[in-house]
């Protein structure tokens, strides 16, 4: 009999173990082709920062089509339907930097979609929050940049593509059905 090679353990678990301490809810917004995050006190960013060893509820909203929250190192995948709030409770186990991917192919600028995930200690997380509150830092939306000025190619088709959304976080980024529920 052969033995299975020792595999890397998952860097996070999805659980709703009430005995573990919880962190504040983070809102996740996803649309074609962009991820954005809203932390408590209306702090927004395009990076997902998670405190290690704390249950962090993620409240996820898709604006247009079916998306998928997928972090390979976490061994976690959650489909995000447009309409209802999708809840996922994550407990990261190790400090590290990962890449959030969308596991469902959805067209032209799919490869430009993605976000960094930083798992860090609670102090660092709070430091980052206060820093971001003072000076919000946002990357340029790559899909939108490329849509407005497409790179030079030998063959240019000009075939139809879904227009990337302007980056908009907060209440305006919520799908209408959800914002009605919340207000």
């Amino acid at each position, binding site marked *: 009999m052969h033995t299975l090679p020792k595999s890397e353990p998952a860097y996070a678990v999805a659980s709703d173990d009430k005995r573990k301490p919880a962190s504040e809810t983070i809102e996740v917004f996803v649309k074609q082709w962009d991820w954005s995050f809203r932390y408590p006190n209306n702090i927004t960013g395009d990076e997902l920062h998670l405190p290690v060893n704390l249950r962090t509820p993620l409240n996820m909203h898709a604006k247009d089509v079916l998306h998928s929250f997928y972090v390979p190192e976490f061994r976690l995948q959650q489909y995000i339907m447009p309409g209802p709030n999708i809840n996922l409770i994550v407990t990261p186990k190790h400090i590290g930097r990962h890449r959030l991917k969308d596991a469902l*192919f959805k067209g*032209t600028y799919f490869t430009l979609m993605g976000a960094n995930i930083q798992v860090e200690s609670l102090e660092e997380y709070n430091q980052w929050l206060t820093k971001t509150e003072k000076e919000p830092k946002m990357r340029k939306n790559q899909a939108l940049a490329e849509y407005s000025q497409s*790179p030079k*190619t*030998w*063959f240019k*088709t000009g*075939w*139809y593509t879904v227009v990337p959304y302007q980056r908009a976080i907060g209440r305006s980024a919520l799908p209408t059905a959800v914002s009605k529920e919340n207000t």
Partner: protein
Amino acid sequence: MDNIIGYRESSTSQNEPENNWRRYFSFSTDHKVIGVQYMVMSFIFFLVGGLLAMVIRAKLITPQSNVVDRPLYNGLFTLHGTIMIFLWIIPFNAGISNYLVPLMIGVRDIAFPLLNAISFWMIPPRGILLLSSFLLPNGTAQSGW
């Protein structure tokens, strides 16, 4: 033996003359002819699909997209996959079995030879229809593979 020869040369025989190359380009109901037609046609589409793969590879030489733009790349990928499955693997299998199975089980032809010929001649229009989607204003399917 006399019986077999007599059967072949009888005036009621449905067998086609075998020394005519034009029947490979015509509507023939002979299972061997249809088998060869299947294999040759699917090989042509195999080359077309391979050409699309070469364009995909040419784009992947550099990380930048400077050969084809993103919608065309997705379209190439989708059509490459579709052609390789539905116009190469499946028709080539059909060709081999059309040619060999009647010989292996020792029958004169497949049941419903006319239907057999019709099913072959439905594939070239299908392939042309698939490839002509490159000429549509909004392009081919771009769903990936």
